[in-house]
């Protein structure tokens, strides 16, 4: 997807180009879910199973059922994340049940932050966070490809500089 060029011409057409998140984030979250469910299911199955009789081991099914549900939720949540760079502002849309859409004009950006924890690094992910003078601004794009995160950061800082405005 080419997003470098529309900056000069403005928005391409009416609807800007929305970008989703790479599948790495979903993979990481689902893997974490599987690991934790495994631990929980083991605990929930073994403890009652050993203490109260093998039939009680069926408790292990509870975490498994929950995990199946969470598996779907994670997928829906991951699909719901969208962001787009318009000519003058960044749009972030997210959430399934509680939807949120954030618009940050480039000129208001005070700081762009790229963070990546050890686990995220292992999965080759990085998140970009935008800070404005308002503490309530919660513009963050998680789970990006590091190269894309850096491109976004550079582009945002460049655009922010060009359109800079104070408080």
């Amino acid at each position, binding site marked *: 997807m080419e997003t470098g060029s529309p900056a000069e011409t403005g928005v391409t057409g009416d609807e800007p180009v929305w970008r989703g998140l790479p599948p790495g984030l979903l993979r990481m979250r689902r893997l974490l879910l599987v690991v934790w469910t495994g631990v929980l299911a083991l605990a929930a199955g073994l403890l009652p199973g050993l203490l109260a009789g093998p039939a009680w081991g069926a408790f292990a099914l509870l975490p498994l059922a929950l995990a199946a549900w969470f598996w779907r939720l994670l997928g829906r949540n991951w699909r719901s994340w969208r962001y787009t760079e318009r000519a003058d502002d960044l749009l972030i849309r997210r959430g399934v049940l509680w*939807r949120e859409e954030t618009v940050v004009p480039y000129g208001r950006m005070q700081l762009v932050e790229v963070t990546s924890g050890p686990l995220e690094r292992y999965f080759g992910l990085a998140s970009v966070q935008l800070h404005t003078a*308002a503490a309530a601004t919660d513009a963050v794009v998680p789970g990006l490809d590091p190269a894309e995160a850096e491109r976004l950061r550079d582009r945002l800082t460049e655009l922010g500089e060009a359109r800079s405005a104070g408080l």
Partner: protein
Amino acid sequence: MTAPVPGGVPDRPPVAERRLHPVTPFRRAWAPVAVLAGWAVHDPNAAQEQLTRLTGTMLLIGLSVLVPAAGLYGFLSWWFTHFAVTGGELRIRTGLLFRRTAHIRLERIQAVDVTRPLLARVAGVAKLRIDVVGAAKKDELAFLGEREARALRAELLARAAGFAPETAREVGEAPARELLHVPPRALVLSLLLTGATWGSLAAALVVPPLLWFATHSVWTVLATALPLLGAAGASSAGRFVTEYDWSVGESPDGLRIDHGLLDRAHETVPPGRVQTVRIVEPLLWRRLGWVRVELDVAGSDNSVLVPVAPRAVAESVIARVLPGVTVPASPARPPRRARWCVPVWWRGHGLAVTDAVFAARHGLLRRRLSLVPHAKVQSVRLTQGPWGRLWRLADVHVDTGAGRTVTARLRDADEAARLLRAQAERSRTGRRDARPDRWMA
């Protein structure tokens, strides 16, 4: 960044560092006494035990150590505090063991406050505080001579406004024109008509006797009665004392606010620093047509613009504070189906967007109308929960630089989506005709 001030950097040699007023050590000398008092309050039993053991000589010895130590501490902290005004900065250098240097950029000034607490008034000194985003409490200059504080404020404002450093000192104080003065009678009446005053007073009078009947323990009663009485005092007498003789003036340097009966305070807010303005209309004031106006300036603690005034007067003041802004008369209510989301109170919500401001109202009994100039909007958010989606309603939040978020609740979902786009556009373009940081430049 702004262009370098002519002569700003090469100006370095003549930077004259100054010290605070020689009265300052006495203020700092309180610190050890305060520590002792804090300990005594924190652990009253141990303190009492220690007190009974104290003899006259021990007391004398203690005093003879404590007083010079406190004096020395005060003297040293005064001796090692310097400040200087350079081309574009106010520099404060302080600290004996832990050195600290603060450089405050003058074009970033959000407000300048000169306060004179009662004792300082007796001594003829004043505190000067520069509000910038992120400034700490310790960045205030306490104390300066009264005349020096006024001169320094005028100089700082002149430099911040963009006057050349050589002339800044001669520019002097900009002439002020009074916009509004709150008569004491109106202030008293407004406090009497405030629910919080009576509520805290009633609580202070009712709760301790009830507790006494329930527990018969003096300490419990005292421990609840004192904070309650304090709260009651703060909400009635305290507010009267701080809001007494409130006057708002206008000058080329911006807004000037003067107030206080015992502690006098004087604030200057340069043009274009106000992030949000709120018109608060308590239930009991509505018959009289009075309102209270609050404002938010980034980095400043003060939040009151007008404690009480008739609506028309308050609106004329707002028109001076936010140039080109008229207060929208009747904000549009949410659609009727909003009553399924917020049963009765949905009627209190409202939204009006003009060319200059985003205005959101909320509250049914105590109405609050928040105004945000488009140029001050930092980001716009739209949120919608599952219940809101069922009724096709959404909330639009507008974040401002003073850390405050103004929310237009329960808007029609399509309208909210349109509003989000339009607001982002307006907040971007609203900046174009905003005045520069250096307002005289």
